[in-house]
């Protein structure tokens, strides 16, 4: 299988889907050059400026127009630039995109994708670094994906583009240059299908995006002590694959839930409830959580490091549930 990085895998997915379906187009700020993460780089050469639309800095118009286009026959893929900026289009996401199909009694499909580059790293500071997926998990009417590997990124983006409903794809910007094998074949990843990234019998670590890699690192370290950690990646939060998560917990009887976003009101809090509901009798210890502190992401490197949940934190949480 070819090896490529996460960003190139997304680029490949866009190319493949734009070739397959002439209704698909990309829109966003600076997407012709593919600034800043390179995901849309070169697409304009193949598909032209009518399908790779460099928009003005108008988040409300970019996202709102995507809904108008989606309701009338196109399939927009919006590049949100930095997910933090989605607040400038929050009405369009939360009130318009999420609700149109429902409020109109199913009269319109809304096949659009919002690509949400997000996450902590490299001193991006408070307006460029936050993990905001929990905001959207809380909005009925949106599907939310959060891949951790190049193959998943490509497969989920392709599925998202083909989905008749609005899908948000959270792309952790710290993963864009992470490499992995990507199948030659189309390899669509269905929404609502979790993936066991590592088998283990002692503890289940449920982790998303960058935290999957921190979880795998923690698992390697703990394996040296004879602790076998299973790492499960939900891959999509809405819909959620409860069955795979619960099956893992029934094998290990201990759970750590790891995410990067702030602890309070988070997706991890919801996953904790799901596990409690599905597997309360199977648990041998209270669920432990790894998450960011309840602060905006700060700028200075030591402050940013403090706000970054990592493999050390996962190791500590695993030890806690094993006590």
């Amino acid at each position, binding site marked *: 299988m070819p090896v490529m990085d996460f960003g190139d895998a997304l680029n490949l997915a866009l190319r493949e889907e734009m070739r397959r379906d002439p*209704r698909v*187009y990309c829109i966003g700020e600076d997407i012709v050059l593919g600034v800043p993460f390179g995901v849309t780089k070169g697409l304009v050469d193949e598909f032209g400026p*009518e399908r790779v*639309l460099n*928009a*003005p800095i*108008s988040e*409300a*118009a970019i*996202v*709102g*127009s*995507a*809904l*108008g*286009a*989606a*309701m*009338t*026959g*196109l399939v*927009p893929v919006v590049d949100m630039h930095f997910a933090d900026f989605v607040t400038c289009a929050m*009405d*369009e996401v939360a*009130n*318009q995109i999420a*609700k*149109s*199909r*429902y*409020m*109109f*009694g*199913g*009269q*319109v*499909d*809304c096949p659009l994708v919002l690509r949400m580059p997000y996450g902590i790293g490299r001193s991006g500071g408070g307006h460029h670094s936050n993990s905001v997926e929990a905001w959207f998990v809380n909005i*009925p*009417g949106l*599907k939310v994906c959060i891949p951790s590997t190049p193959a998943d990124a490509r497969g989920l983006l392709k599925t998202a583009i083909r*989905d*008749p*409903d609005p899908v948000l794809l959270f792309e952790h910007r710290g993963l864009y240059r992470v490499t992995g094998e990507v199948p030659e074949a189309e390899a669509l990843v269905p929404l*609502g299908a979790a993936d066991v990234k590592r088998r283990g019998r002692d503890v289940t670590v449920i982790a998303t995006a960058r935290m999957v890699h921190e979880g795998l690192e923690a698992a390697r370290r703990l394996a040296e002590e004879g602790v076998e950690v299973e790492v499960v990646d939900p891959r999509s939060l*809405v*819909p*959620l*694959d*409860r069955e795979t998560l619960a099956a893992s917990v029934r094998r290990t009887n201990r759970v750590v839930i790891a995410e990067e976003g702030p602890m309070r009101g988070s997706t991890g809090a919801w996953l904790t409830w*799901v596990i409690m509901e599905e597997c309360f009798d199977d648990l041998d210890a209270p669920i432990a959580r790894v998450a960011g502190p309840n602060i905006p992401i700060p700028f200075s490197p030591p402050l940013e490091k403090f706000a970054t949940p990592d493999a050390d934190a996962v190791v500590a949480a695993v030890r806690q549930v094993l006590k």
Partner: protein
Amino acid sequence: MYAGMLRVRLFEERVRELFAGGRIPGFLHTSVGQEAVAVGACAALRPDDYVLSTHRGHGHLVAKGGSLGGLMAELYGKANGICHGKGGTMHIADASVGYLGANGVLASGCVLAPGVGLSIRQRKSGQVVLTFFGDGAANRGPFHEGVNLAALWKLPVVFLCENNRWASTTAGALSAAGGSIARRAAGYGIPGDSVDGNDVLAVHDAVSRAVARARAGEGPSLVEAHTIRWVGHFEGDPQVYRGKDEVAEGRRTDPIARLEQTLRARALLDDAGARRIRDGITAEIDAAVAHAEASPLPEARDALTDLFAYYPWRD
């Protein structure tokens, strides 16, 4: 257009009565007095053209040819309302006539419209999209973002400001800088027309010009139609913020009476004709009310349908 305005007027008047009688839930914004804008604009559109509307949108839907029965049943919150009771007065759509949604959030249609324009251009369908918004909405960011984008990309969009002088209970003079919404068009390099919104022919002319430009690929236009809201912002609004003289002015400049006078002066309408039109519309509305009254309420569990087109999992 005479029958069109009368249909909107009589529909809204009936809805007000039904609301006062407790038949319709929620809070209600009617467009009595503003009929010339809805009808003049929609008469300039083809049946397959699109409309995006506002929280005061019944008239726009009636003028676009939406089903009165489906609309009335939706206002009642009935299962066979056009949105199955999920939308209601402020969140209604009728995709079958190109009505892509009323909107509870001001100016949101102004950013949806460029996307509809993109889709029209991509599909080479020759359609046009018209978005209604109020003078209050013109002060929100999405108005400016949407006009800018549509102008930049020369999209087939008509921005139609229905200026009824009031942003809820705040006077336009106290909320819109510059004194004119139409003049804002100049900043985006597009035509900005200001018309008497109680003159259905003037509205029709201005919108027709804007539609022709849009269809010819020359880009968007902004039309500001000045009208008067005869009723409160919402039903039950005591209207302490404005004088009775404004409503009196509205009745003096009644767009329906005005067109009727013109038609009678040109011998295009007589008493019998006027009565026939009114009776026909009244019968349509009676049928719509009967349909809504006879319709079943949704089952509570129906609240869980229509969220996604495709969602086989539970959570």
